[in-house]
């Protein structure tokens, strides 16, 4: 595709619910990153995929967060038992390779009520 796309653009859910956020990277990009950004702060690294595998998941805050990229393209970030503190903009970025410039999607704004 022309750029990184993310769906949905906005998601409102209730505390305790499960949510899935989707990222479609630029075609051919092997590296994919998930970040979380709260108001007034820079993006916070969550997880990095190289191909299908999670090469670095050190940023996932706890075991309620999980991400997959089964075919090395689309990725899904899954959050179980959502909490109000999970409210943020979730950004996805892709890059041709690990050392290449990251290009960001428009993000998903998650609001947990």
């Amino acid at each position, binding site marked *: 595709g022309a750029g990184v796309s993310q769906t949905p653009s906005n998601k409102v859910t209730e505390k305790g619910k499960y949510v899935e956020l989707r990222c479609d990277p630029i075609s051919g990009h092997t590296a994919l990153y998930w970040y979380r950004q709260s108001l007034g702060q*820079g993006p916070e*690294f969550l997880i990095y995929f190289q191909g299908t595998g999670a090469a670095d998941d050190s940023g996932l805050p706890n075991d309620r967060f999980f991400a997959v990229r089964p075919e090395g393209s689309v990725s899904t970030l899954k959050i179980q038992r959502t909490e109000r503190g999970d409210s943020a903009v979730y950004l996805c970025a892709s890059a041709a390779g690990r050392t290449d410039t990251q290009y960001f*999607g428009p993000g998903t704004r998650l609001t947990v009520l």
Partner: protein
Amino acid sequence: EDKVVQSPLSLVVHEGDTVTLNCSYEVTNFRSLLWYKQEKKAPTFLFMLTSSGIEKKSGRLSSILDKKELFSILNITATQTGDSAIYLCAPDSNYQLIWGAGTKLIIKP
């Protein structure tokens, strides 16, 4: 612990002014430093700096890195209202970007 500090946190100037945005960092395994512009949600790439003292330019924007003093600056000359955004710097620490909180720049007509 890795640290990135951007200053000022916010800045309001008039169209036509020149601004300088600062980024100081302390990160392990430094590889490069990136600048991004964030207008709505998606940060857009501006510059990647790897060597000290070499200025990168793109139109009215320019940036330089000092690896000895551990800082970078982003200059914008003849500012326009379209430059209003949050400017983020992110040193690459062993292939992981460490993000600053950003400088919110507002350009008044």
